[in-house]
């Protein structure tokens, strides 16, 4: 645990060192990055040690705050979540130096560095905390850092709006957690997680109420479907490496919290698993559908985070079902699928956000419609992003498939069948996968393939290797997990077993039976790459010595095509948008060309968020009107104020005397 403290101290130092040396940007950046890297590597080494089966003695120190104590411990669950925290922080932090360098003048580098490093440290503390007060402190520092990162460019109105929505959601979340821990802690008489777990009520309305609180509090953070609405607002406006962190890691803290809560419960009612399955199915399908309707690259990625959180929720739902039916294999499968997807999503989503940042800077905007042809102009960025895109669609041989395969296995396999609804969740998952493929061919195609549609895209170029290096690393990790999944799956499975309070050996043969195919999945994936390479060589051999010409794209007889006539992202998504019109409620503004020589015509489509734009904002506007009416109480006349006093006095006298 000393190492953990050292790592946290290094990260905090990385946060603070940037301010005094701000006058010399290179030194500040280098120093901060070195400290960040040292902190992350130390922490990651510790986490890996625990995941490899090492034991770390918990750290306990008195903390002179009521109910508080400095209880830190590293069990496999904590360690598993530390891995993405440190990995993504290191990659995104390195990338961030290059990013901030290019954004000088628009972003305050010290400000961003400070909150970025502090965010990393606070998340690590929250994950390792075993005392509710300490947990809440770490949690809120994390939320506030994330908020300030979102608001890094607060001159823009949309950034302020996003920041406000975000801070409201995160504060509502923490209020739910206040009540949750207050109730649990008052039952236990202590705020230690261990004592709380021992004092939890048995199955009944009380336990379900606590679960509802946890689901709301942690779900708001994670972005489960009805609570997702802040996410597509907040993630796009942050600096891209911060978005990578927010989307890749901070969301997962909600998952961590929920898993921690479930691990405390000695009995899990079956309804919880079904609720999680329902949330997972709806989040994944709706998340990807709304992603499909977006034109803003980072907003699109944010909706995809909702989709992936949905997949994680499916895994957690399976694990919960396993717990309530006493099916050890399902517990392991479900939770390890969820955990592995946490890791996977953090890798490919941060990769995609880093790529999006590079595109954003190259194009001067996040809209995908004006871009095109970037694979030619930004070859490295686009190649790495392609890996991320394929991975997020859950395609083999990348890592996304491994965790999705585990979810499918848990949903479909007979030996773990405890609920008939699970099968239909599989259909939702399948649809999600296909829609994600549609969405990413759209986004990736519009951005990087074909011809540039605007001058900015013409001039775009790859960033330096400070930014490309981390992307390369993340891409390699995505491919690596996809090809060699076993060690990662085994680590996740061990965590899942501790989560389900099973001894590590329980259910081992059947588990081995379920996990063995993954080796094969990895090798077949490698085989696919090999085969494709073989065919590529074949083609090269065949074409060797023959005429290989270069010409224009076949225009189907039209002789003067321009890049503007390429298929746009919106038209690409249009068949699906029309098919799901009832859900998406796309708003279009269409000024058709008129007359014989039409001069101007325009078409615009955007998709408001169903929860934020269609429900919450109108509702809050109405509530505000009602409040304004109620506020006439305070209308300025002293006589009425005195009347309140008088009436209240009489009321209390009659009531109490």
């Amino acid at each position, binding site marked *: 645990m000393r190492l953990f403290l050292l790592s946290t101290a290094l990260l905090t130092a990385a946060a603070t060192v940037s301010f005094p040396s701000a006058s010399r940007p290179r030194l500040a950046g280098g120093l901060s990055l070195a400290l960040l890297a040292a902190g992350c590597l130390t922490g990651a080494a510790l986490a890996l040690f625990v995941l490899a089966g090492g034991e770390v003695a918990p750290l306990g120190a008195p903390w002179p705050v009521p109910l508080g104590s400095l209880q830190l411990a590293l069990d496999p669950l904590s360690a598993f979540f530390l891995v993405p925290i440190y990995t993504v922080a290191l990659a995104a932090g390195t990338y961030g130096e290059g990013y901030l360098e290019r954004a000088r003048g628009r972003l305050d580098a010290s400000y961003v560095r400070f909150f970025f490093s502090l965010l990393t440290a606070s998340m690590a503390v929250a994950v390792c905390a075993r005392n509710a007060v300490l947990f809440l402190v770490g949690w809120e520092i994390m939320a506030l850092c994330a908020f300030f990162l979102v608001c890094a460019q607060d001159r823009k109105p949309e950034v302020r709006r996003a920041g406000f929505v975000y801070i409201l959601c995160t504060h509502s979340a923490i209020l739910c957690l206040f009540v949750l821990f207050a109730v649990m802690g008052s039952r236990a008489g202590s705020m230690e997680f261990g004592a709380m777990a021992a004092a939890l009520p048995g199955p009944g309305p009380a336990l379900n109420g606590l679960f509802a609180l946890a689901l709301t509090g942690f779900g708001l953070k994670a972005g489960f479907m009805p609570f997702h609405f802040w996410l597509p607002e907040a993630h796009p406006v942050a600096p891209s490496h911060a978005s990578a962190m927010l989307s890749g890691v901070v969301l997962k803290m909600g998952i961590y919290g929920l898993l921690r809560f479930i691990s405390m419960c000695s009995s899990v009612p079956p309804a919880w698993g079904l609720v999680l399955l329902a949330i997972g199915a709806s989040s994944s399908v709706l998340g990807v559908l709304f992603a499909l309707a977006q034109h803003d690259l980072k907003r699109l990625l944010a909706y995809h985070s909702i989709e992936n959180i949905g997949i994680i929720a499916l895994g957690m739902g399976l694990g919960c079902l396993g717990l309530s039916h006493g099916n050890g294999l399902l517990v392991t499968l479900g939770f390890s699928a969820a955990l592995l997807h946490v890791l996977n999503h953090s890798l490919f989503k941060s990769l995609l956000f880093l790529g999006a940042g590079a595109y954003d800077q190259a194009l001067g905007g996040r809209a995908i419609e004006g871009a095109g*042809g970037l*694979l*030619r102009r930004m070859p490295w960025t686009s190649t790495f992003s392609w890996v991320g895109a*394929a991975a997020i669609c*859950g395609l*083999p041989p990348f890592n996304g498939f491994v965790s*999705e*395969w585990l979810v499918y*296995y848990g*949903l*479909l*396999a*007979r030996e773990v069948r405890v609920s008939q609804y699970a*099968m*239909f969740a*599989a*259909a939702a998952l*399948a*649809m999600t996968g*296909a829609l994600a*493929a549609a969405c*990413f*061919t*759209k986004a990736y195609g*519009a951005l*990087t*393939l*074909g*011809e540039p549609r605007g001058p900015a895209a013409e001039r775009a170029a790859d960033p330096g290797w400070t930014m490309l290096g981390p992307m390369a690393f993340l891409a390699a990790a995505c491919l690596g997990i996809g090809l060699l999944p076993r060690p990662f799956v085994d680590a996740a499975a061990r965590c899942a077993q501790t989560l389900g309070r099973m001894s590590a050996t329980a259910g081992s043969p059947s588990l081995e*039976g379920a996990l063995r*195919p993954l080796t*094969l*999945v990895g090798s*077949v994936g490698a085989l*696919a*790459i090999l*085969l*494709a*390479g073989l*065919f*590529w060589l*074949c*083609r090269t051999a*065949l*074409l060797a010595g023959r*005429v*290989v*010409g270069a*010409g*224009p*794209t076949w*225009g189907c007889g039209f002789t003067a*095509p321009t890049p503007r006539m*390429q*298929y746009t992202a919106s*038209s*690409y998504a*249009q*068949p699906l948008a*029309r098919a799901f019109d009832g859900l998406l409620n796309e708003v279009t503004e269409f000024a058709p060309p008129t007359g014989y020589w039409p001069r101007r015509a325009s078409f615009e489509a955007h998709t408001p968020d169903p929860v934020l734009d269609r429900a919450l904002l109108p509702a809050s506007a109405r509530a505000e009107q009602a409040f304004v009416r109620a506020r006439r109480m305070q209308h300025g006349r002293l006589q009425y104020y005195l009347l309140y006093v008088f009436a209240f006095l009489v009321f209390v006298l009659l009531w109490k005397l």
Partner: protein
Amino acid sequence: MNLTLTALCAHLSALLVLPPLLLGIIAKTKAAFGGRKGPPLLQLYYDLFKLLGKGAVYSRTTTWMFRLGPVLSLATALLAGLLAPLVGAAPLSFPGDAVFFAYLLGLGRFVTAAAALDAGSSFEGMGASREVAFASFAEPALILAVAALAGATGSLSLGAMFSGALWRSFGAGIVLVGGALFLVMLAENSRIPVDDPATHLELTMIHEVMVLDHGGPDLAFILYGASVRLLVWSSLLVRLALPDAPGPYGWAAWGAGVAVVGVLIGAVESSMARARLVHVPQFLVVAICAAAFAVMLSLR
């Protein structure tokens, strides 16, 4: 894997050699329905041979993505063929390979669509758009069908699910699953009524328009890959319906079955018109519903 070398060789050679023949059968059937003589049965072999011998012209817009599409989609098709049982056990078989099968095909689709977009033509973009849109409906139908079979057989391996041994216990389910899979197969392999492989109007094409810019060996890879996929799908249908018997009899039965599927496709294509594009999702929703009912039956 208890797979004999002969069985493996038989599987591989069937997978590698037979696919173009199936397309020939379909073409002959359609010609017969139309009262024409039609192209020779081995026409696609000639075409492939000719294409492989040609040079290539690449659009100046394109990048490595464009070149990756044909080779990777062919690789995925062949690997899917290794996962799917033809006669006897598949060379690659493990619990959960059904899901892998579906996602391999998805990978092929993903790279094909990306390659199409790389050309930068609005027609190819349109084709890719339709392809991925329809796949979004085909995929859940496929997974539900798999789920139904998994529910009925208790296994998540294609070999066990498609063993033709379920008629007694799960007859109605087999019919529903078979129907769903047939519809999905038509969609996935760009057949009428979803797509018309013989059309000459780019605006109405799906798959054909995606590969407009490919030529020479690339086009050969694509055409061959498509035929491999069709064979694999047909084989799955056959294995769903017919009991499995190893050895030459099994191969004979399998060959006859695949030929019947080819004729069936040809018959459908001759008797139906291509559906309007907006109706294709409805068509696939039928498949989803059929598969969902099968799941319910399997759970009883």
